[in-house]
């Protein structure tokens, strides 16, 4: 085990450069350290000017997504020991504008997430006195996987379609829309269909499958999108054959 490892970090300081550069730091190697620990060491002891996002440091908040050696990862879940002998390259997520160093702007995703209405939509809500909405374990199983999304944006960073076509609504947004479409308590599938079946909705996806590969919570957004394509297409056929019965 080496005593130290090199960390090559992307820097971007708009007040003094117009293009990102790289800066290498020699950090102590600890076998239980993750990349986030290394970055925090840099910020605490070597270079306080390094900017990056992090929060829970245990893989549930989705804040610390960055590219490690070219692959989008949660830095709180990426062990230094897997990247020996180094150097380990840390860069901001692809396809999002870089604000500073390793910080990217996520406004685009936030806007798209709102568009798919990620909440239970019902025509009539039950009054609290009437009790809960009941759901069997099998009904929960149909959407549970998609509810695991922590909005970490690794999938957007892996999706080449999102890189080529920034207006593409993207894997996480569609997976979350599916999470609600498949929820037995939800009645809003028709409302979400409108935004999802637009040109920049599900039909942009060509099932590259990279999103599912990098997802740290095993949400399988690629699967969600393909399943939704089938639903969307059958709905379309139904609306064509039975125009009066569209719900």
């Amino acid at each position, binding site marked *: 085990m080496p005593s130290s490892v090199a960390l090559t970090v992307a820097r971007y300081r708009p007040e003094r450069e117009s293009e990102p550069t790289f800066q290498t730091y020699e950090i102590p190697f600890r076998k239980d350290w993750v990349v986030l620990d290394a970055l925090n060491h840099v910020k605490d002891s070597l270079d306080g000017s390094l900017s990056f996002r992090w929060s829970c440091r245990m893989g549930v908040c989705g804040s610390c997504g960055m590219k490690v050696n070219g692959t989008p990862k949660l830095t709180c879940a990426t062990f230094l020991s897997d990247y020996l002998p180094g150097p380990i390259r840390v860069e901001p997520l692809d396809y999002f504008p870089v604000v500073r160093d390793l910080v990217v702007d996520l406004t685009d995703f936030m806007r798209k997430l709102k568009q798919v209405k990620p909440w239970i939509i019902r025509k009539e809500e039950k009054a609290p006195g009437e009790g809960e909405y009941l759901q069997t374990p099998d009904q929960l199983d149909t959407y549970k996987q998609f509810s695991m999304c922590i909005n970490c944006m690794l999938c957007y960073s892996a999706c*080449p379609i999102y890189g080529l076509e920034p207006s593409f609504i993207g894997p996480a947004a569609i997976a979350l829309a599916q999470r609600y479409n498949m929820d037995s308590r939800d009645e809003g599938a028709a409302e979400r269909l409108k935004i999802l079946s637009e040109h920049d909705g599900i*039909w942009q996806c*060509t099932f590259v499958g990279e999103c599912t590969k990098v997802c740290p919570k095993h949400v399988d957004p690629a699967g969600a999108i393909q399943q939704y*394509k089938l639903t969307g297409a059958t709905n*379309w*056929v139904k609306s064509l054959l039975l125009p009066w019965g569209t719900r």
Partner: protein
Amino acid sequence: MERITPLLWLLFSAGGTVAALLFPVHFFLTGLAFPLGWLEAPSHESLNRLLTHPVTRLYLFILISLPLFHWAHRFRYTLYDGLQLKHLTVLIAVLCYGAALAGTAMAAYLLWNIS
């Protein structure tokens, strides 16, 4: 164009399934085994006999037409994404689906007019 995207995707899926299930065996026989003499090719008469059945003609129509639409849809997106030819998107779509339609029409014409 947008309003028929679900239809184009369904054709793409159907064509892909037909191609995946049936093309390997057909291609192996027609493209390799028969020309190389590994297996005996069916004679002109036996093929014509098969063609008299309407089921054969329907089968051949599906075998030719659906994979063409599979190619059209997939290739269109490959050009659009792979080569970033966004400004030619309408032209690409017209050429791809047009070619698939032309192949389909020709197959339909040939199969319909078999005496």
